[in-house]
C-alpha cells in the first residue's frame, strides 16, 4: 500500500464520520442519507469503465461438492468411487460434458449445458487456507492451519472474511466488503454497492461500505404507517418520527438500532421504485429459494443505471447442505435447486443483456468428508466451486483434482477430509481482479494472499481475455 493511497483512505474515513454525524439533521429535513452505507469519493476507481457485478452464492452447511462435479478419467473415478463407498454416484448416472474431463451430478443438466456453452468453469479443491499445507504440515504445524476448521459458524465467518491468519474475532469486514470499500468509488450517489438477498452475512460488510438487505420476493417495501410515502401514514406523524430519529443515543446498541431503522426506511425509499420498474423476466418458481433470490438480483441489476451503479456485489444464500444423514435424497433436492436457480439467473442475465458483465460464483463453509457415516458425510475442508458468466473462460476446469484416497496424501487424517490445493484468497483475488481491483489493493483485501503463488494476477486464465 502506498503512502498516498493510505492518506486518501484516511481522508475518506474522516468524511464517513462527518456524514454519520450530520445525518440526523438531514433526517429532520426529510433528506436522510443511508448512515455509513456508502460515500462517493474520488480516487483510483472513480473512472472504472462499464458495469460489472459479482454475485456470491453461499452454500450454507458445507456443500458436498465432491458429488456435484466428479472426475471422469477412469483411474480417478475409480479412486473416487472407492473412497466414497455408498455415497459414490454411479458413473453411468453422471452427465458427461464436451470437455470429457468432468462429469456432472445428474441433477445439474442446466449447469452442464452452460459449461458446454463456455460460460461456466469449475475451480477444483478450493478451501480456507492461511498458506499452502501438506498432510505432514497439517499434522505437525497447527499454527499454519486456520482455527476451528470443521466448525460451521467459524468456517462460514472465515470463508466470508478471508483473513484466516488472524483469529476469527479480530477480523471485521468481509472480503466482499473490503472490495466494495474500493469499488464504490466507481458509483455515484449515496447507495452502497452491496446488496444481500439473504439478510445478514459476514461477506459484505466493509470498513466503509455497508450492504443493504433486500426482501428476495418483494424487494424493499415502504413501511406502512411509518413512511409518509405510503397511504397509511400521516405527514404529522412522519414529521414527529423525523424529529425522533434525529436524536443521537449514547448507548452503542441504541446507535445501531437507530441506524438500522433509518437505513431500512431509506433503502425502501431509494429502491422500491427501481424494483417496481424492473422488466418482466418471465415466470419464477418461488419454491426455489435460490431462483427467488437471484431473480431479485437480476431486477436490481436492471436498475443499475437509474442507481448510478458501475460496480456491485450481491450475496445470496442457500441453506441445507449439512448432509450428515439421508444425503442422497437431500443432495438430489439441493442440486436440483442449485441447477434451476443458476440456470434461471443465467437466462435472466442474457435477457437483460448483461451476461458478460455479471460473474456468479459459489462457495461454502467447507467441503465434506469423502467417507460415509452411515448415510451421509461429515465436515470436510476443500471442495469444488463453480464460476458462471459470459466473461468466464468456461467449459474448463481450474485447479487440480485432489487424491481421492482415504488416508492419502491429501487427507488430513483417515476420514477423507481433503486439504485444499487452492486457497479462497486466490479464488477471491481472481474474481476481484476481474472486477478491476489493482494487484496491490488485492493484497490488502486478502492479507494472506501473499503466502500463495501469483497466478491470481492473471486471474488463472479464468476470464476471457
Amino acid at each position, binding site marked *: 500500500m502506498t503512502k498516498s493511497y493510505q492518506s486518501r483512505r484516511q481522508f475518506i474515513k474522516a468524511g464517513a464520520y462527518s456524514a454519520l454525524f450530520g445525518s440526523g439533521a438531514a433526517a429532520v429535513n426529510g433528506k436522510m442519507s443511508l448512515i455509513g452505507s456508502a460515500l462517493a469519493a474520488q480516487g483510483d476507481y472513480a473512472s472504472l469503465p462499464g458495469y460489472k457485478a459479482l454475485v456470491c452464492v453461499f452454500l450454507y452447511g458445507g456443500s458436498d461438492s465432491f458429488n456435484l462435479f466428479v472426475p471422469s478419467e477412469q483411474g480417478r473415478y475409480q479412486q473416487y468411487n472407492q473412497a466414497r463407498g455408498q455415497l459414490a454416484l454411479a458413473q453411468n448416472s453422471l452427465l458427461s460434458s464436451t470437455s470429457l474431463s468432468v462429469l456432472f451430478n445428474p441433477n445439474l443438466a442446466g449447469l452442464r449445458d452452460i459449461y458446454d456453452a463456455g460460460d461456466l468453469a469449475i475451480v477444483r479443491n478450493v478451501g480456507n487456507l492461511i498458506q499452502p499445507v501438506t498432510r505432514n504440515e497439517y499434522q505437525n504445524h497447527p499454527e499454519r492451519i486456520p482455527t476451528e476448521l470443521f466448525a460451521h459458524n467459524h468456517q462460514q465467518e472465515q470463508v466470508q472474511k478471508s483473513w484466516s491468519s488472524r483469529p476469527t474475532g479480530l477480523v471485521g469486514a468481509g472480503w466482499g466488503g473490503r472490495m466494495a470499500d474500493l469499488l464504490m468509488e466507481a458509483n455515484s450517489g449515496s447507495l452502497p454497492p452491496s446488496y444481500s438477498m439473504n439478510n445478514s452475512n459476514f461477506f459484505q460488510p466493509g470498513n466503509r461500505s455497508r450492504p443493504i438487505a433486500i426482501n428476495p420476493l418483494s424487494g424493499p417495501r415502504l413501511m406502512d404507517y411509518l413512511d409518509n410515502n405510503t397511504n397509511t401514514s400521516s405527514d404529522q406523524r412522519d414529521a414527529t418520527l423525523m424529529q*425522533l430519529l434525529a436524536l443521537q443515543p449514547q448507548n452503542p*446498541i441504541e446507535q445501531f438500532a437507530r441506524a438500522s431503522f433509518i437505513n431500512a426506511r431509506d433503502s425502501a425509499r431509494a429502491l422500491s421504485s427501481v424494483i417496481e420498474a424492473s422488466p418482466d423476466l418471465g415466470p419464477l418458481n418461488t419454491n426455489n429459494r435460490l431462483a427467488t433470490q437471484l431473480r431479485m438480483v437480476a431486477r436490481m441489476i436492471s436498475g443499475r443505471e437509474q442507481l448510478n451503479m458501475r460496480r456491485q456485489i450481491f450475496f445470496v444464500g442457500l441453506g441445507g447442505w449439512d448432509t450428515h444423514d439421508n444425503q442422497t435424497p437431500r443432495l438430489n433436492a439441493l442440486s436440483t435447486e442449485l441447477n434451476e436457480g443458476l440456470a434461471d439467473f443465467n437466462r435472466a442475465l442474457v435477457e437483460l443483456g448483461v451476461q458478460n458483465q455479471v460473474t456468479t460464483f459459489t462457495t461454502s463453509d467447507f467441503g465434506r468428508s469423502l467417507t460415509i457415516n452411515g448415510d451421509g458425510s461429515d465436515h470436510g475442508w476443500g471442495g469444488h466451486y463453480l464460476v458462471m458468466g459470459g466473461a468466464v473462460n468456461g467449459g474448463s476446469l481450474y485447479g487440480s483434482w485432489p487424491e481421492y484416497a482415504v488416508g492419502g496424501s491429501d487427507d488430513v487424517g483417515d476420514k477423507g477430509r481433503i486439504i485444499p490445493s487452492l486457497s479462497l484468497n486466490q479464488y477471491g483475488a481472481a474474481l476481484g481482479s476481474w472486477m478491476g481491483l489493482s494487484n496491490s489493493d488485492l493484497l490488502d483485501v486478502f492479507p494472506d494472499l501473499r503466502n500463495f503463488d501469483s497466478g491470481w494476477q492473471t486471474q488463472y486464465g479464468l476470464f476471457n481475455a
Partner: protein
Amino acid sequence: MNKDIQITVTSIYDFLARSRPAQTRKTLFVVIALITGCSDSSSNPIAGTNPPETPEVISTPDGNSPTAENNSNPAISPATIEAEDIAAARLLTQATFGTTIEDINRVKALGIEQWIDDQFTQPGSSHLAYALNNGGSSSNAEARVNKWWLDAIDSEDQLRGRVAFALSQIFVVSDVQQTLGNAQLGLADYYDMLRDNAFGNYRDLLEDVTLSPVMGVYLSMLQNARANPASNTRADENFAREVMQLFSIGLHELNLDGTPKLANGRQIATYTQDDIAEYARVYTGWAYANTDRWDAQPLSQYADFLNPMVPYPQYHDTGEKRLLGGVVSPAGLTAEEDLRIALDSLFNHPSVGPFFVKQLIQRLVTSNPTAGYVERVARIFNNNGEGVRGDLQAVVRAILLDDEARNGHSTNANFGKLREPLLRMTHLWRAFDAQFADGRNNYTSNAPQLKNIASSFGQSALNAASVFNFFHPDYAPLGAIRDAGLVAPESEIYSENYVLSTNTFISTYIHKFYYAGTEAGGVQFLTYINIEPQTRTAANPEDLLDELNLVLMSGQMPDDMRNILMQHLDALPNDIRGRAQRVKDSISLIMTQPAYLVQK
C-alpha cells in the same frame, strides 16, 4: 429524580380503577390495595421484595389523595412509587413476554423475589396436549404455533415460558429441516420438554435433549450406527460435535467468569477432532421407541416422535472410548451406560457453567454481561448452595436477582439488549390486552401471518435456519458496537429487510386493529389491541406518556424523546378520535425508537 420519567400516581391509579369494556375476555387483576412502597430499589438490589406489614396507598405528587374509588389508605411518597414501578417493569421485561400494568402491580404486591418464587410454582399447560386437542398433526404446525402465542400472551407461567423460549434458542431444533417440518407434534413435545426442564437440572435437560427423537433427527444421532468396516462406514459426528460446541462446553476453555483461558496468548480448544470421533462412537445405537425397526423412516407409522429414543444394542459401538477430562468409558458397556458417562463428562466440565449461563443472561437480561455477573451466576450453576450442580431454578433466580440485572441500567453504559422481534409483538399484545376478533379463540386464525412470521421477523418458535439459531451469541455488527468490543446478537436479524417487515407488521396491528370505545378499527376481523383505557387517559397527554413510558420502556424514556412526543400529542385534537390517535401514534412511534428497542 428526572422529572420526565416520573410516573404520576394519578395516572397509575386511574389505570387501575378503570373498568373494562364488556367484550373483553380477561379480568383485570386489581391490586390497588396491595401496592407497596417500602424501599428504594436503588439502594438494595433485592430490596422491595418483602411487602410491608400494612398496605399503603398512593397520593398525587401535590400531596392530594387520588379521587378515584377504593382509596381510603394513607399516602406514601410518589418518588418511592416511581422507583418501585420502574423496578417491577424492568424485571418483567427480562422475565416475561412483555410488561403489563397488571404484572407490575403483582410484582409490587409480592416483591421481586417472591414474584420469581411464585413463578416457579406456576404449572402452565402442555403444548402437545393443546396441539392434539386443536387439530394439530405431524404436518400441520398451526396448532403448535397457536399454543406458543397463547402461552406468550395469556399464560400465568410467564417466567417458565420466557426461559423455555431462551432454551429453545440454545438447544435448537427447527422445522425448517424438512423431516421436522413433518414432525410438528414431536416439536410441541420437545418444547414441553424444555418447559418442564426450565426450572429443573441442566444434567436432566442435557439428557432429555440428547434422547429426544426430534433432536435425534435434527442432528442425526437417531439411527447412528457403529462403524462397519465391511461397508466402509463410521459413526456420524454431527451430534457429537454440536452438543459440545453449542449445548454444553463451547469451542474454547473458559474461566469461571466466561472469559477465555489463554495459553501463550492463544485460546485453548476445548476438544479436538479426535475427541469428536470418540464421542461420536458413544452416541451410536439409538433409534425410535415402540418399534423394533432400527431403520424406520421418519414419515412412517413407526417413527415415534413423542417418546425418547431407545437403544438398539446391535448398533452400539461397545469399544472403549477416551473422553474429555481423562474420562474413559471402558469396553463392553451398554448404550445407556456409555451415554451416562459421556454426558457426565460434559456436565462436569468446568466450562459448562460460564458457557451456558452467559447465553441465558444474554437471552434474558443483557448482551454484554460483565465478567463479574457471569461469574456470580456460574458459581450458582456449579453449586446452588446445597451442593447441587446445574440447578436451573437457582440459576434463573441468580440471573434475575443479580445487582447487574436489577441496576445495570444505571450503572453500566453498555447495559441492555436489542429486543427480539417476536418479543416486541408479544409485548404489544400483552401491554394492550389483545382481544380476539368475534368467534375466534386463538392468535393465528386472528392474525394469519403469524403462521409464517419468520419471513417478516427473522424468527419464529422452533424455526431457526440452522442449529446456530436465528442469530449468533457473539455477533457484533461493524461500527460502534464492534469498535467498543461489544456484541449484539439480535442485531443479526435487524437487517434492513427484517426491519421493514417487522415494523410494518407491528404498526399495522397498532393502527389498523384496535378498540378505543366508540372509536375502533378492524375488531371484527383480526386480533386487536384494547386501548380504550389509554384513550381516556389521552385527554391528558402527560398522563398517557407516563403510562406508556412505564409499560413499554420501564420508565427509561429520554427527556428529549418525551418532549417531541408531547408536542405531537398536543397537536392532535382532544376528541375521541384524536385521543385514540394520540394513543396509537405514541405506541407505534415509541416502538420504533432506539430507547425502546434496546431493553434496559
